[in-house]
């Protein structure tokens, strides 16, 4: 993977209501959801929309990132900016949604990083170039990795569909 800067540091239990508030749920298309990413974090949302945040940047969070609603917009809105989320761990539905829509996320149980730090995600670890420390990544179960390798759940499901007889 790549090198990039930490553009936002967040705590534990960041819910989907923070990432993508319920009041924008009628907007569903992955091309339209990014405008509402972290909309109540006004400064961050403005920077995102102004394209001040380069693709390949990182959000670093604590535990249980993406807890709450099953709304997939919470994954697609971040994906729209090609940001990678690194967290101590992820809530189940959010993790699966991220895999399905192709949002890059990294499970890194001991991650230490501050806003502005430069990170490198390579072969099984996150290297914090600013602090000089590195942290092990927890790999995904194989079956989930297969969906990522296929380019998301849509191509993966399409392949399975074609293996089955026509209804």
């Amino acid at each position: 993977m790549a090198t990039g800067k930490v553009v936002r540091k967040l705590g534990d239990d960041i819910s989907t209501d923070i990432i993508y508030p319920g009041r924008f749920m009628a907007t569903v298309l992955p091309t339209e959801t990014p405008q509402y990413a972290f909309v109540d974090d006004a400064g961050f949302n403005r920077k995102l929309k102004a394209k001040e945040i380069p693709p390949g940047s990182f959000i670093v969070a604590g535990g249980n990132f993406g807890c709450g609603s099953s709304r997939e917009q919470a994954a697609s809105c971040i994906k729209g900016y090609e940001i990678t989320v690194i967290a101590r761990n992820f809530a189940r539905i959010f993790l699966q949604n991220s895999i399905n829509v192709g949002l890059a996320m990294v499970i890194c149980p001991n991650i230490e990083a501050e806003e502005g730090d430069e990170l490198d995600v390579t072969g099984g670890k996150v290297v914090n170039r600013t602090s000089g420390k590195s942290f092990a990544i927890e790999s995904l179960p194989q079956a989930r990795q297969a969906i990522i390798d296929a380019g998301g759940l849509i191509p993966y499901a399409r392949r399975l569909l074609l293996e089955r007889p026509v209804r």
Partner: protein
Amino acid sequence: MGMTYVQKLLARACGKSAVALGDVLEPPVHLAMSHENGALVINQFNEIFQGTGREPKVWDPSRIAIIFDHRVPAESSKTATNQKKIREFIAKQGITKFHDIRGDVGGICHQILPENGYVRPGQVLVGTDSHTTTHGALGAFAFGIGATEMASVWALGNILNVEVPGTIKVVVNGRFARGVYPKDLILYLIGKLTAEGANYRVIEFHGETIRSMPTSGRLVLCNMTVEAGATGGVIPPDAETERYLREEAGVKEPLDLFGPDADAVYDQVVEVDAATLAPQIACPHTVDNVKPIGEVAGKKIQQIVVGSCTNGRLDDLEVAAAILKGKRVADSTRMLIFPASWRIYAEALRLGYLADLIAAGAVVCNPGCGPCLGIHQGALADGETALATTNRNFKGRMGNPNAEVYLCSTAVAATSALTGVISDPRGVN
């Protein structure tokens, strides 16, 4: 080695004699539920069929349920257009379990599925809603998934990548004190387990208190297991499950009732003495920030909400009406009621509960999600505080990130409506 309830359920669903923790399965889905977010599912579903030369057809229209509840009646033209698109898809695909915006069959998805007899013990049930865990109350392995995942279920009929989860066994014994309810029990448990304490695992409920609890209370417990991060909550089916399905849900065909093995292996066992519980309050802005009512009593509240898929059932309306009958909602607060389904609404009307609530000054809204997620009803002003029987108090819930939401039982909500401050229902009435 013995199997937990969900292990056994998954083994049966997959036609295997046993499954082990961590096995990755692709069980067939018995019921797939969506609401307004079906609009996104339809997009993704059509995408899957792109370039395959096949016509987009769902695997089994009789196993799909779609309920309009999150924004009913539509609050914007955008929502109305989404709903129209879903209606057209439903007609084209021949989906029969459809609950439109109607006073006879409408309501919140997590009440509509049980009350119509769609949920059965032993089912694998998925829904594009995190509180799909609710249906574990009737012995289904029920969990929330995203829209793309649902599109894949509609296309294939299986749910991919299900890892056999570990289970936390919760054993509850003892009788609730007067004024203490299943909601207090689940809030207490979430506080104890924390918001991520049950991540990727199932909570299986046991004990005397659960055995003697009506299905309405069991639905409350399982509904909120996701707030501890659980994939699902489950109550092994028993005589009460059968009673509910036969008498209240009109299910006629034979039921497949089974329980976990006596020597099942659990990740963790938590024991609770229900008799020692006080009413519990989840304080802003996380559901695990739970305190006994004594620590927050007296807090001023501007909006009280009774309803939702958690506590909007007939017994909730009965409790609220009993507390408010012949009395008055305090002038310093406002009270909103939104029953979980129109069937419940009609029954509460017939029994006079709604008349008592209205006479006391409460506003009775139409069944639906309404204020729970703050999209088009009951939004809060900056700096306001709400006390609600719903299941989430995240920042921004109820439509305003500059407001606060406390969660409680119906008895606490109704008692507090009389005073305008968080008030203990014990000893009242």
